[in-house]
């Protein structure tokens, strides 16, 4: 048996130059040109998602459900827009008016009420000047603070000089001169 035969058979002995050259040239075909050889076919049992993958799936499903529920809640609570609201009517021109203040300089609650008449907000006109002789309190038209108010008007703010909020004394009986 020649040296080349031995090397060809079991690679023993000195390499035969011709066979070694063929091995070098052909060796590039042993590996795939672009990607490494694939592994054995993946068993079907291993194709199931891992525990971590399952947890991620659960979180994703929960997040989706939460988003859907939040959207539904928002849509159900939101009042359905009327036609008038959908198309807002222009506001009536209103002159800027300084907020009413009490004599002590405190701001009073705004009496103006926005009436929704067809979408247009109107402002109640200021009260007319009270007739002479009555109390010249610009806040006399304020809503009564107590339901049992009878008789003289009471100042809900307890201003000095104004009638107190305490129950009014019974008027002194005048002697009958008759």
């Amino acid at each position: 048996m020649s040296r080349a035969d031995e090397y060809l058979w079991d690679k023993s002995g000195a390499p035969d130059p011709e066979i070694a050259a063929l091995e070098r040239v052909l060796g590039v075909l042993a590996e795939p040109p672009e990607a490494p050889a694939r592994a054995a076919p993946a068993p079907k049992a291993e194709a199931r998602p891992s525990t971590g993958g399952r947890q991620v799936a659960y979180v994703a499903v929960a997040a989706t459900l939460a988003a859907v529920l939040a959207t539904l809640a928002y849509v159900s609570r939101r009042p359905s827009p009327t036609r008038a609201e959908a198309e807002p009517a222009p506001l009536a021109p209103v002159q800027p008016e300084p907020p009413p203040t009490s004599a002590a300089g405190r701001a009073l609650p705004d009496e103006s009420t926005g009436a929704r008449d067809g979408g247009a907000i109107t402002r109640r006109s200021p009260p007319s000047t009270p007739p002479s002789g009555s109390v010249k309190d610009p806040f006399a038209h304020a809503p009564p603070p107590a339901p049992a108010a009878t008789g003289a008007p009471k100042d809900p703010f307890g201003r000095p000089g104004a009638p107190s909020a305490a129950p009014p004394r019974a008027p002194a009986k005048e002697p009958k001169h008759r």
Partner: protein
Amino acid sequence: MTSPDGAALPPEEESTEPPDPELMALVKAARRGDRGSFAALHARHVRLVRGILMARGGTRDLDDRVQSVFASALEHVAELRDPAAFGGWLAQIARREATTRAGHATEELAVDEIAVVDRPRAEAEQLLARIRSLPMAYAEPLILRLVFGMTGPEVARELALSPAYVRVNLHRGMTKLRELLDLDGRDGRKGGT
């Protein structure tokens, strides 16, 4: 039995090698459905399968064909009765796969196309084409030996063939290849002058 060129060959199916106990254990476990054992069998025999497919179908879609052979083996390994015959059984699956693919094979990638991309690979493809032009009984062991580096005894053991049969085919195949390459060289020199 005679060789493709008419010379007498030693008997093909007389492997004097005793069965490899590790191989036997792996095949038995794979038959019971042990995926790890099948993966080990894949690692042991992937060169053999690649060599057989390359000898019969070239390098085109080789990875896909190898994958197909092992998928088929995984599907049918439980039906294999003799664990010692696993290599020969796998080789038969690979040969059947090559025959099936050859029926509806797409055209081979031209060597000139490869040369544009990868010159060493193009040279290897040219040499492979010369080996594939030999009778398959020579081409298979030559490719397993020269491309995948398997020794003659390894080829004989994995294919469950007698070493004498493999050895004769290997040396006769090498002689034929030398003749072809000498012929190519002379033609090349003539063409160049």
